[in-house]
């Protein structure tokens, strides 16, 4: 994002570096911004920024967990702003000149490395907490719903003799099918507690079972016998 002037001091190459800066977010989000990569290859400073950002992104994806909440990134950004590392483009030229002097450059490099490792640790900690939460949710799928379903099933068993045999058989088949789903989801979650899809299907199966039982009990009160 810089080029050397005649006296060796850094100054901004306004067009290319500003374009790089403007297109960087899109490029990192998967947009087609080939100019970003080309400029990074030509400009050492911009190339370093891009490689650092790619390193952070790569490190976070290796953890194979969900996106951290927006507040984590907001806190990182707030910290960088508070430390003066994020400034408006107009202010940037002055601090870059200062930044390139030896002592601040070393301090900033150390800070950037520290930030990268701190962020990685924060992310790792976040993912650990998220995984623990998943396990807890998997074990505690709405006990109130499970209790209601259990009571409704007992009522159905007690009154199903009054139902039309064809209808009774249909309900029993449905309940058997849903019980199979519930068991399979429980088994899967026991092995893979981070599997959101299994948890989603488990809750869905319990909810559906409640609806089936509700329908059967309503019908048992009418003429459907």
């Amino acid at each position: 994002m810089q080029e050397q002037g005649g006296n060796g001091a850094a100054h901004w190459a306004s067009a290319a570096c500003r374009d790089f800066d403007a297109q960087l977010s899109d490029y990192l989000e998967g947009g087609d911004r080939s100019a970003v990569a080309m400029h990074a290859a030509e400009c050492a400073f911009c190339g370093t920024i891009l490689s650092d950002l790619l390193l952070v992104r790569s490190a976070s994806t290796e953890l194979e967990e969900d996106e951290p909440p927006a507040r984590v990134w907001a806190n990182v950004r707030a910290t960088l702003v508070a430390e003066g590392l994020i400034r408006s483009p107009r202010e940037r030229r002055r601090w870059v000149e200062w930044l390139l002097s030896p002592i601040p450059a070393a301090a900033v490099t150390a800070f950037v490395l520290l930030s990268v490792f701190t962020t990685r640790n924060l992310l790792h900690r976040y993912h650990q907490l998220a995984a623990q939460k998943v396990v807890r949710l998997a074990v505690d799928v709405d006990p109130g719903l499970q209790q209601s379903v259990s009571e409704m099933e007992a009522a159905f068993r007690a009154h199903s003799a009054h139902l039309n045999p064809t209808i009774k058989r249909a309900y029993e088949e449905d309940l058997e099918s849903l019980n199979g789903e519930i068991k399979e989801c429980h088994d899967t979650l026991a092995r893979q507690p981070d599997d959101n899809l299994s948890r989603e299907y488990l809750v869905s199966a319990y909810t559906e079972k409640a609806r089936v039982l509700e329908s059967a009990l309503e019908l048992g009160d009418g003429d459907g016998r």
Partner: protein
Amino acid sequence: MVMAARNEFRLTKYLYVPFALLIPAGFLMAAGQERAEKTFRALPNCHIHISNPTGGTIVVRGWDKSEVHAVCVTNSAKVEVDSDPTPDNAEAERLEFVTHVLDQEATPEERTTNYELDVPKEASLIISSPTGSVSVEHVTGDDSIESVNGAISVTDGAGFIQVRSLNGDITLLRPAGHVEATSIMGNLTITGSESQRINAQTGSGKITFDGDFLPIGDYTLKTYAGDINVICPSSDSFALDAHSLRGKLDNQFKLNPKPRLHSRSLHGASALGRINRGEASVTISSYNGAIHVRPRQ
């Protein structure tokens, strides 16, 4: 005299054949079938409730008249149909048809009642028929239809179509309104869809969708064990989020990456991305079933 009578029989016996073929139908009616036919004046957007807990078919067709014409056939005198218009001295805002069992000793066959109704096409319907099939055609008001074992079909529905059959198949032809279709073991077939919002779910049944994904539409197709087949024009613009935990996933569209779209599970097979501009939202998921998404040839 005897001979004369015999000759007369010989001469005319072939003329009796067509009448003899009609005897079974007449016999059935005589054995207990009862037919009731009524016409009610009704508002164009009237609400019609039909509750037929004893079994039998229900057919409802929309027409241009502000009338409800109902034909109800019971299999025996051990059941009856009550019809109740509200108000009863003017065009009905609400009409209720309910089958009642008069004799609790009646067999399931004797309880069967069939309905055939012509209703104002803007009418709204609430139908409950645990064991019989339900067919609704050309009714543009809202439909709420429930069954346990019966098949449900809705043709050219344009309102909010809420259908649920636990074990019966559900067929929706050219739906144009918001669709909520659920089943446990039945198949769901949606053909010629012009709907902007569809939520179709079944457990072990299959889902077949053949229609358009309209821009800003929202579509969810979900099964537990059944396969899901989706066919739509290659020009449709939608964001696809398809996932099968244990089944095969076959997507024949070219996907463009969509930022910030993440798989809902790290396990199984998934397809995520935009097709064309990615305007509609299409979510397809199955636990054990296969998913096929392909353009219409």
